[in-house]
Each structure stands twice: as C-alpha cells, then as structure tokens.
C-alpha cells in the first residue's frame, strides 16, 4: 500500500521525490521485516490468551517420547501469527501487482488454510491423530501444486520464456537440460507436496521448525535479490528474473515474523505453530524455490527438512509397516536423537547449527559455480 501511495505521490509532484526510497528493495525489505516483528509481538500475547480461553490447545499424540506428554495443553495454531505478520507487512510494503509476491502469498495462504483446517479438526475430535484424513490433505496439496505447476510452465509464467522448465543444479552455471512441461509439472507437484510435509514432520520440538526455515527463506531472499538485479545476476551468471527482487521483501517479512514467533516458541514453548504454521512455511519455501529456479538447491539448503522427512518415511513405510522391524531407533531424526539421550533443547540447537551450516554452504553456491 505504501509502495503504491509513494509512487503515486512521486508522480504527482517533485517535492515528494525523497519517497523514491521505496523503490529500493533493501529499504522496503528492512521495513517489512520490522513491521512483521511488531505485528507478531503485538498480537502474540492476546492470541495466546485467546487460545487458552477457547481451549484451542494441542492434543495428545502417541509419539512414544516422554516429554510429549508434558506438552499437552499448549495452545497451537501459532502459524496464524506468522501468516498474519507476513500478510500485514506485505499489504503495507509489497508491490501488489508483482506475480512473484502474489504466487508466494497464495502458496502460503493455501497451505496455511489447509493446516488451519487440520488443526481445528484435531482439536474438535480431541485427538492428535485424527485430523483431516491423509488423503484429503494430499489431494488439497496436490490441487494447489497442479495449478502452480501449470502457472509456472504455462504462458502466464513470471519467469522468462522457456526458462521455467530448464533444470539448474547447484555448483554449475548453465542449465543441464530442459525437462519439458509435463515432466516439470510432475516434478513441481511432487516437490511441493514433499517439502510442505517435510516441514510438518520437522515441527516436533519447540523451535525446531521455525529457525531452520528462517535460514532457508533468508538465503532464498538473497538469491532473489541477486536474480532480480540485472547487474548482479549478469555478474554471477544467473538468469535475470525481472521482478524477482520482490521476494527479498517477502523473505525479509517472513524472517521478521519468524524471529518474533521464536520469541514465544522457544523452549519451553508458550505456543506451537501447529499444522497451520508448518504447512504454510513448507508451502512458502517450496513455491519460492521453484520461482527462483533453486529447486535443486533445496535438498542442500533445506537438508534438515529432507533428512527428517526421509528418515520418518523410511522408518514407517519400509521398516515398521513392511519389514516388521525398526531401521532407526526412532524416527523422525529429532526423536532418534532424543532417544539416544540428548535433551530436547540440545537436539534443537544442534539441528539449528546443522541447518545454519547448510545455509552457509548454499550461500557459497552463489559464487562457486
């Protein structure tokens, strides 16, 4: 909103020329982050109180880990705060006509809404295992993924001509091939579903999902800045993506909201993000990396999420359901570490460290190509 107003004022009279500041991405990014921080700080305590009063609390879930029991009764659905922070900040500072921003916001809202429904039904049914069914969830995630894949590979794509289906890998300058719209659509479809569920699985300990996702979104913001800048992208041999810079602002707002959320979500948590938060974060990260052509960087950048999801799937689908044995002591990864006698706080911080290292390595791919 402010972006539009300022640009209008500039066009009206020269005396408002210092409002040109809003055309600098860095300036808007910083203010967007601050706005999101302030929003989350302002609304968190009333929100937590509200959740307690309506007893919208987390439900018991059979995880087999001791601390899980102590945690029942913590309010959930904190993802609403993150989404609210990002959304309000984007309403103020975003360029509303930017396709990158709009599709990222759409992903966030769709997945967030899906998670919200899941959380609500868990609370209604008084059980952590009985949300909306796995199939419904997958179908709704798949629906968005299909539309989004069509959007990327089709004529409305915000990327350059034919760029969307090209396949870029980290540490290599040129696209290694063209996947064609069908294969690419399938890839995007699977990628979105996988990433959003990966964050959902990771969200098992206080603060475990939020910080690594801040790293991921932060790094993606940097990539957006580079790729959206004609000079930097030419210098670093990236395809120039017009308007992609807007994702930097989006990423900054997200980091701001996430940091403020961590304030309350840090161990011992006063609020959980719930599926509302984890699915929204997963959806956002997936959409942003697809838009920035960094799909192949994600396994490295979000390696933690991948490890969590893969370990959980291997244990459950291959081990327990099929082979009739445990392959890891426990799954997903963070429960395994807990089982091996590492306290929750220590597990969380160690995994943050790992996620940070992965983020640094991913940043290095900017130049090392």
């Amino acid at each position, binding site marked *: 909103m402010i972006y539009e107003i300022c640009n209008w004022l500039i066009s009206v009279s020269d005396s408002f020329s210092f409002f040109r500041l809003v055309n600098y991405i860095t300036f808007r990014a910083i203010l967007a982050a601050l706005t999101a921080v302030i929003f989350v700080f302002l609304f968190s305590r009333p929100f937590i109180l509200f959740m307690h009063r309506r007893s919208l609390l987390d439900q018991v879930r059979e995880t087999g880990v001791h601390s899980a029991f102590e945690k029942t009764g913590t309010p959930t659905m904190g993802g609403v705060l993150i989404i609210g922070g990002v959304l309000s900040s984007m309403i103020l500072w975003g360029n509303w006509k930017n396709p990158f921003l709009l599709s990222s916001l759409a992903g966030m809202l769709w997945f967030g809404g899906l998670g919200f429904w899941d959380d609500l039904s868990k609370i209604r049914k008084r059980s952590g295992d009985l949300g909306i069914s796995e199939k419904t969830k997958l179908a709704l995630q798949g629906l968005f993924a299909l539309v989004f894949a069509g959007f990327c590979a089709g004529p409305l794509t915000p990327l350059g001509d034919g760029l969307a289906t090209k396949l870029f890998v980290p540490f290599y300058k040129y696209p290694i091939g063209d996947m064609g719209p069908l294969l690419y659509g399938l890839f995007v479809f699977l990628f979105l579903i996988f990433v959003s569920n990966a964050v959902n699985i990771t969200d098992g300990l206080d603060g475990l999902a939020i910080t690594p996702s801040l790293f991921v979104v932060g790094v993606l913001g940097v990539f957006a800045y580079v790729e959206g800048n004609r000079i930097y992208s030419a210098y670093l041999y990236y395809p120039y993506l017009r308007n992609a810079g807007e994702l930097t602002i989006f990423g900054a707002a997200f980091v701001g909201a996430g940091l403020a959320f961590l304030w309350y979500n840090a161990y*011992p948590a006063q609020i959980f993000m719930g599926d509302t938060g984890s699915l929204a974060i997963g959806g956002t990260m997936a959409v942003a990396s697809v838009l920035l052509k960094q799909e192949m960087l994600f396994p490295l950048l979000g390696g933690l999420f991948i490890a969590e999801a893969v370990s959980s799937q291997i244990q459950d689908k291959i081990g327990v359901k099929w*082979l*009739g044995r445990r392959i890891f002591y426990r799954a997903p990864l963070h429960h395994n570490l807990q089982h091996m*006698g590492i*306290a929750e706080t220590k597990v969380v911080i160690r995994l943050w460290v790992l996620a940070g290292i992965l983020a640094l390595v991913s940043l290095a791919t900017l130049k090392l190509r």
Partner: protein
Amino acid sequence: MVVYTLLLSISFLFFGIILILVGATRWRRLAGLGRRVILTGGGTGGHVNPALAIAEGIKNREQETQFLYVGVRGKAETVIVGKAGYPLRYVSSEGFPGLRPSLRTLRFVVRLGFGVLQSIWILFRFAPQWIVATGGYVSAPIIVATIILKTLRIAPTRIFLHEQNSVPGQLNAVLGKWVDKVLLTFPQTLSFFPRNGVVVGYPIRTSIVPRPREIALKNLPFTVSNGRQVVFAFGGSQGARTINRALVDALPHLIPHRDRLFIVHGMGLASSEGYNAVADTEGRLQRMITPEQRNLLDEFYYRQDYFHNIADVYSISDLVVCRSGAGSLNEISRLGIPALLIPKANLPGDHQVMNARAMKCGGAAELLFEDTILENGVVLEKLEGRLLADRILRLLGDRERLHRMAQRSTQFLRKQAVERILSELYEDHSFDNGIGYHAEPFKPLLSNNRLLQLLSRAYQRSPEQYDPVVVVGDAADVVYYRHRAAGLLSHKMWQDRNLGVKLIGYTRYHEKIPTLLHMLSDRTPAGRIQRFFGGDFAEVGFIRRNIVAALQVLNQIDPDIEASLLKAFEDPYFEVRAQVCRAVVHFGPLLVKRDQWFEAMKNGINDRCFEVVVEAAKAMGEIGDDARAAGELLNLKEHHFWQVRDAALKGLGRLVDRDIIIPSPSLLSHINSFILTATDFRPHFSIKETYRCLQNSCNQKLGAGREELDPRSFSEHLARKR
C-alpha cells in the same frame, strides 16, 4: 436424434407408470382374494428349513394359502424346496463381500441390482401379502425390492425377517432396520433390533419330535443294549472335519470304557475336492486304530454318512457332540439333550461361538474349542482326541449333571416357535410372546485389537496381579480368545502373526510356548526384496521381539525356554537382544549362577547397539554373582552414552542390594570416577505439579464428601420430615 431419444424415454416412462398403476391395482385386488406368501432365504439347510416350518404352520391355519419360494439357483433350496412341493423361482444374488471396495464389491452390486429387478417382476406377478424371509444373502434381493415398492406406496406387503443366529448376519443387520418385524431366535439379539425385534425361537419342522427309545431303536440299523449311554457325534449335514478326526482320535481312549458306552457317528455328506467326509474318516480309522482295537470297536461304535431319520438317533442319545449352528442347537433343545459343543472358529461375527456361549450360559451345554494349527504348510483346525475323550467320559460319568443339563436344554429355547411366529404374522396375539420381556444385555466378544488393548493395559498397571480371566471376566471367553490368538499364528501376513504372538502372551496360553519358541528360532529367510532393504527372516523382527516379551508375560521358565532365550540373544535384530535382557531382569533370581547367562550379558555389554548395552547392564545387576559382574559394570564408567553409565550405576546398585559386592573405599573411588555429565535432563514444571497437588486434594475431599456427608444429611432430612 435428441428428439427421438427424448420421445422414447418419455414413452417408456409413460408405459412404466401405466404398468405400475395396473400392477398396483391388480395387487390390491388379488390381496382381497386369498393369502399369498413369498418365502425366501437359503444358501444352507439352516436357512431353508425354518422357512418351510413357518410355511407348514401357515398352511395348517389357512389351507388355501398360495406360496412361492424365491431362492438362488444351485443352493440348498433347489433340493429341499422341490421335495417339499412348493413352486420355486430363482433370482441372482451374492454374499456381501465386506466394506472394502474391490472387484467383488462391484460384482456384488451388479448381481444384487439385477436380483432386485428380477424380484420386482416376481412381486408384480405374484402380488404377495407377506414376505417371510429367513436371511442369508438369498433373501436380500426380494427384501430390497419390497422395501422399494413399499416406500413408493405400491405394495401393500408386510415383510418378516427371521434371524436364526445370536449375531445377525451383515445383510440381516442392515435390512432388519427396514422390515416390519424381525423374528429372533435368541433374546440376546434383541439389542440389535430394539424397535422391531420379537423373540420367537427357531421354527422346527414337525418331523423332529421325540420318540420312545424302543420305537426309535427299531427304526435304526444298529442295536444298543440297555444300560449303555449313547453319544451322538456329528458335524451337520455336510460333516465337520475337526469333529470327524477328533472323534476317530478319541476312540482308542474310549475303548477301555466300551461296556458302558455307545458312539453313533454321523460323518457327513461332504464330498468335494477339499474334503471328502467318508473317505477321510475311513482313512484315518485305518491309520489310527490297530487291527486288535478295530475288533473291539464294533461293540460300541457305529458310523454312517448321514441319518435321514435323525429324530430317532436324537431320541436314544444321552449326549450330543456337534457344531453350534442355530439349527443343530434348536433340534437338541427341542428334544432336551445335553450337548458338548465344538463351535466353528473364525466365522464372521463369531456367531457359532456366540450361539454356543448362549447355550452354555443357559446351563445346557459344555464347550470345547478347536485349535488352528499349521501342519505341513496347511492351515488346519484341530481338536485333540484325548481331550475330547476326557470330556465325553467326564460328562457321562456325572449322571446328575447330565440330567440337569437335559432339563436346562429343554428350557433353553422358546418352544412352539411356529405358533409364536403365526401369532406375530396374523397379529392376533394367539400366543403370548412374553411382551415386556427384557433381554439380558448382550456382551459381544472383543475384537483382537480391543482385547490386546484391554489386556496390555491391565498388565502394565500391575504385572504381579495380572490374570487375563479377571480382566476379561469369563473363563470360557478367555479360552476362546486363546484359540483365536493361536489361529492367528498360521496367518500369512506377519502383522497378524505378530498380533497372535502378543495375544498368546497376554491371554497366558502356556500350551503354545513350544510354538512360540519354534517361531523364535525359525530362520526361514524373508523374500529377496525384503532382505535387500534390511529384512532378515520370515518371522520378522517385531515378531521375534514380541515373542520374547510374551514369554515374559507368560511368566514361565524351563530349560527349553532358557535355551531359546540364550539363542535369541544372538539374534541379528537389536530389539530382540534388548528384549532378552529385559526378560533376564524379569526372571533374574532364576537365572543367577549360570555361567552361560553371565557370558551372554558380558557380550551384551559389548554390543554395538547402545539399547542392548543399557539393558544388559541392568540385567548384569540382577544375575551377577561375584566381583566379575561389578568389574564389567565399572568398565562402563566412561561410556559415550549417559544411559549406559546410568544403567551401569543401577546394576551396581542392585549388586550392592543383593550383597554380591561389599561397599569399600576402593569401590567408592571407582564409582566416583564415573562421568556424570549427561546430555539429557527431565524438565520439572513447578506450576503443573502445584496444579496436580491441588487437584488431588480437591478430589480426595470431594470423594470423602460423597461417601460420608451426603447420605447422612439425606437421612437427617428424612427424619425431620417424619
């Protein structure tokens, strides 16, 4: 083209409506002329015979009644109904395949749908006033068709559904909600049909009546001298493999008592590829009975494939050994004979077990359960011959009990079921059906998963006082659950076998320990793909782990079990090894001073999986009997995992408690050098504990108030009023 289709469909609709109108008018006209009844139901004789018995009753009252029997081609009704002289029409139908969608579901829907169309046609042609259905999928199409026509207000027809079993079949349970009346055999079934159920009993054809012994004997091809007790064993018209084989196996045990016994054996008519009753029984007789014994047999044993005059055999019997289908039970009850029932296991809804339970509760029968075993790769139901012989002899020996059972047997089921049914059909209250009769609450059997949940919770609450019979509340039910669990062991899916193993543990089925031990050491490899992904044997890791856990719950140890546990400690799967250590802790005092166990736990302490090390260290504390054990545990003081160090300290604590090691300054200094930093801690939320304290004290005071304060004030209140 479109116009043509439209015209065609409109004309079809038009003619359809006209036809329906004509049909409905004809229906009402015909209804005024005389009684018209459709009989339906079948699949087995157990469904057909009651329908015919009801028809007999109606015919006795109204001679000119017209009947039409609707059945499925090629089933029992094809033979029986034709002989009884009723006109028969066929429709298409199929058994309900269950809720899971599959090709069979599709076929079921198509067949049933076609059957309903056929039924509508039959209904319009015959225009019945009553439908008397006796269940089974055979009667489903006609019932559905009638319900449709009734809702459209075309058919002025009343539907009566007779349910023979104590647990209604799936189709009956659904359709029963829509019919006019459900006629029940067992009062327990009322809970399924609270709105329209009436308990009437099981209609039996007039040919089954008791006869004096002398007359009955004259009709039979064998003679029984006076003073001998007659046992009649049979497995229904087709025969039952379990009963036939068990009876042959029991014969050698019965020979010593041949002077006071006579066994009549109905082998059954089954002659399919799967089972040929007569051939199988004769073959078994050849194999199991020596020639000398065979000569003795003729004195007291008579066998025949099928008794057409079964009422005569019943009349001379002192005890019946049979399956617990509704038909057999009702015949037995009508003639008042004590029974030893062997219900067929693993049927949908366990209805034979339910029937048998009902009769046992009435004091009219005893139960024996068949076992499910795997013999040469074939799943078989089996009953030990010796067990059967013992039970027969024990029952026959107690004449007073037999007499009591016979009396109860006559009282067990409602007599004059046909009269009761006619009273319901004509609604003339010609027979008092016991209005206001309240069914005792129906206690259904638990599903395997429910049972496991119930038992495992009870066990975890207090392992020492655990007793499955107390938890379940009925010894006979526990026996049945045990057999059902044993049946699971021969399933193909490992998940089922796993469940069976757990249930055998929790129901304390000690007789199955050898099977469990065999499974535990079974080294049949898993499929190649499974092994590629990390699987090992066909009896998967969870099964082996749970076998060890079950042995612990069974709480029994002997050299065989001990040897198997020792062997299991070398299992490639870490959870099995850890579970063995837990079992060692459980059986601790019984395993002390065995070098092989000390060696095993020593190896356990050096295991590559820390879980095993933890459990082995604890176990070492229980079975160690000299300083070597302490030395092993002290070696763990710098172990990487704090749980291992913790377990070592616990083990040392047990050694000190058991006075194996005597505290000394050197021991203390060793203990002092343990690394005590840990990567884990238990959070302690003060506010939550304060809350729990407050809640507890409130609850205590509340509880005290309810017991002491309320009644007193209430009685004071009353006294003042007076």
